[in-house]
């Protein structure tokens, strides 16, 4: 009974997350098109893309390109399930990170310079993003006395009031994770990128399809973490991530891409300092 219910909950959560992630991606494309005075594809286009990818032939240059997508998707799904079960934020982040590790390993398994460079850049992105997420976990501990996310809902006021600087840093991490300008240098959807598809270059057909779904799940996880900043009511928990999501898309369309050195220096450095200040302030 208990096992069946758990399994049902897991499946329902994953289905909902995939649906939500795909729709958000569709909205993203539509909104971006409007900002560029185009009409844009239908909102369900991302699903159609993935279905088409799934039907294509499996071609690899190295077996790891078949191994990695499965591992990446499974890690993203596991992290999300742990979030739904109100688990330990540190463990969620560790599992989430494992997905990124496999994505990079698969990309580096090919000698293609595009894939290699994309993989390296993805690593630097992980270095800067994950650091900030772990600092959010630290803030969670300092405010609630526990790393479990279940503690957030008991707080009398939104976490955002006490973590404004950390939220700014998180917004930076969200841009990086969504692969948007100005930080879209490991892989991006647009043609102006000089790396072909960077870290995704060597993944084709069903493998790319799996990675696309994994990316949706990652975005949903990030938005779920974003909702922790205002966990006092359902409305705010939906509105805050949505506002952040739209803000990232707008920023993507009004900014040019920066170099990865810039990201490491300013994004990571400044983001880290802001977060650290916020943590000291929280404790003091």
């Amino acid at each position: 009974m208990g096992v069946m219910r758990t399994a049902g909950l897991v499946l329902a959560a994953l289905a909902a997350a995939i649906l939500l992630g795909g729709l958000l991606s569709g909205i993203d494309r539509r909104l971006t098109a409007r900002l560029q005075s185009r009409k844009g594809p239908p909102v369900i286009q991302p699903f159609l893309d993935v279905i088409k990818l799934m039907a294509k032939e499996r071609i690899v240059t190295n077996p790891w390109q078949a191994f990695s997508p499965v591992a990446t998707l499974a890690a993203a799904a596991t992290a999300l399930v742990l979030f739904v079960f109100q688990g330990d934020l540190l463990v969620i982040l560790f599992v989430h990170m494992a997905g990124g590790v496999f994505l990079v390993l698969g990309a580096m398994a090919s000698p293609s310079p595009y894939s290699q460079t994309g993989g390296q850049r993805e690593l630097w992105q992980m270095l800067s993003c994950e650091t900030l997420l772990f600092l959010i976990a630290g803030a969670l501990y300092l405010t609630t006395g526990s790393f479990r996310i279940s503690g957030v809902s008991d707080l009398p006021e939104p976490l955002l009031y006490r973590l404004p600087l950390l939220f700014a840093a998180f917004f930076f991490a969200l841009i990086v994770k969504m692969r948007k300008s100005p930080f879209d240098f490991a892989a991006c959807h647009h043609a102006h990128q000089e790396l072909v598809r960077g870290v995704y270059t060597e993944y084709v057909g069903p493998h790319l399809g799996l990675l696309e779904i994994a990316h949706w799940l990652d975005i949903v996880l990030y938005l779920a973490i974003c909702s922790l900043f205002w966990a006092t009511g359902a409305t705010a928990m939906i509105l805050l991530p949505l506002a952040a999501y739209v803000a990232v898309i707008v920023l993507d369309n009004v900014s040019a891409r920066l170099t990865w050195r810039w990201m490491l220096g300013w994004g990571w450095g400044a983001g880290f300092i802001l977060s650290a200040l916020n943590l000291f302030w929280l404790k003091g």
Partner: protein
Amino acid sequence: MTVQAGLARLDFLLCIMGSSMSEAILVVLIIVPFLAALACFFIRSTAFRTFVVIATVCVLAISSLLLQESPAGGFGGMSAGIIDPVITCGDFLLLGIMFFLGCRYRHPLIVMLTGGQLALFAWLEFFVFAGGQGPALFQADVLSLTMVRVVCIVGGFICLHAIPYMRAHEEHQKLERSRQPGFFAVLLMFLGAMNGLVLTNHLAHFYFFFELTTLCSFLLIGHDGTDEAVGNALTALWMNAVGGLLLLLAIWGLYAQSSSLDMYGLVVSAGTGRAAMLPLALLILAAFTKSAQLPWQRWLLGAMVAPTPTSALLHSSTMVKAGVYLALRFAPALAGTMLAQGLMLAGGFTFLAAAALAIGQRNAKKVLAYSTISNLGLIFACAGIGTPGAMAAGILLILFHAVSKGLLFLCVGTAEQQVRSRDIEVMRGLCAIMPFTGMIAVLAVLTLILPPFGMLLGKWMVFEAGADNIVFYLMLVLGSACTLLYWVRLAGTLLTGGQTAGFKPEIKPFLTRFPLAALVCAAVILGLCAPALYAWLIAPLTSLFDAITTFPAGQPLSANRAGGLFNAQGAFPLASLFLVAALIGLVAMYAVRKAMAGKKGSPYMSGANSNLPDHFLGPMNRPVRAVVENYYLAPLFGEERWTLWVNLAAAGLLLFILGGGLWA
């Protein structure tokens, strides 16, 4: 009634037998390696030596598993009558040898340091230490038992791997007279010295074994006899001689207050005043030199010139682990003091700084060396946090680090013998040339960085235990991010390779393959057993801390029904994650099989692929090799730029530790 009496009697007999059996095992663990070393050294037959090494390793491994926890107060019944004078003579011999080495190589620093130790030791031995009934000579608690098993089993695998490795090593060197007898003698002696070090309860004997490991590492590092090897061995000798001197001063200080050399007793009864803390601070500094913590990292980085078994042994199961053992042994006495705060911060700083320096390295062995230093910093920090939970995390980290790191060193060494370089870029695509070694190296890296494996579990425990101190938490987060980066980069580089068809299967001797396969299995299985190991560790540690300190003990983790570990601060669903990981592995392997059955692609080269692998068609339709190298960001993470500053900062932290000793 009679049955009950009979049972009670049987129980009593078993108890007696048990304790005398433990003592017999103790003798085997410490004496047998020395006897085997003598046999290796004097009987110069290869077959005989191989037999002795294999037999010794088997005996040690089995004995280490049979050894049980000693009763409170240590193993009784062992008389100090013979052992004491033998060890004292050994001490003088050892210091004399080191003094002589200093003279022979005209190294004034070594001469002064060992001369100072010799004088101080003689004075202490003849005028200060009173005779009479000393403490129990040996004791084995959970910390010692874990260490003994790491030394005997992981160290044993390294010795086995050394047999074919050294044969190939000497074939390459073209020596007239084999130097293997000496090498294996020192290797085995090292295991005996480590066993003695972690089992003894007598502080003066501890000093003897501590110095013996210093001498062994000098001999092993300098084994090849090149100028570089001898130079680096001398560096190791003088730096560890500083550690020896600090340890001797600490022993003097401890004896001066309590007139006792009983290690367990000193931990239990250590005072909190200034006089009590200063020797403990010196003890910690001695442990830092032994574990090559910043700013003493130079000797361990230099030790890389030695043959692979040496570096594997120094890094995973012996030598550097002696330092963290000492810190963890005295951790309960430090809990809650300024000194412990300093220890935590210095450990955290080493964790971060060494990880950042590893990013800038393209020498694979140096990456491994920095990563060892970094992980040991984490274990020192565990000793500084000062809760039973943190100490259990530290012990688990010792274990998991030894297995995975030993494995990686053996893989890199095997690869180095083949590709004749330590440069990561030269090892690019190793998995295509050496599929077995390459894949095991990648697996070893994954067990170091991915959940649900043991290293990550240990790190999670440290995160939870140390989150109250923000500075420490920040260092932990940054250090972990750097760690992830350099490991994934290394594993990815090994994997690079387009064509997997047409490679030759790797043919290696059984004694090369067996240790690798066994260690990789151990890394996975031990990770799965982590909750049981934790439960085994935490109960005695909790009662130890309760007996000694009033510092808040934190919340130990407990296991839940689903095989996870949890407390009020967090939860790690270990068994579920292992299940998920196994499922992922199966599904992914299925995907691999399916993909391999299909069409093979060629790497993307802007559509201008040439017929040659890894080449594209350049100008005039000539094939050009596509060369990609990793970002090492030498200007940002290079050791040339940072070593001085990092060392200064670390030295500042050491002064802080010493200050913590004076302040309290």
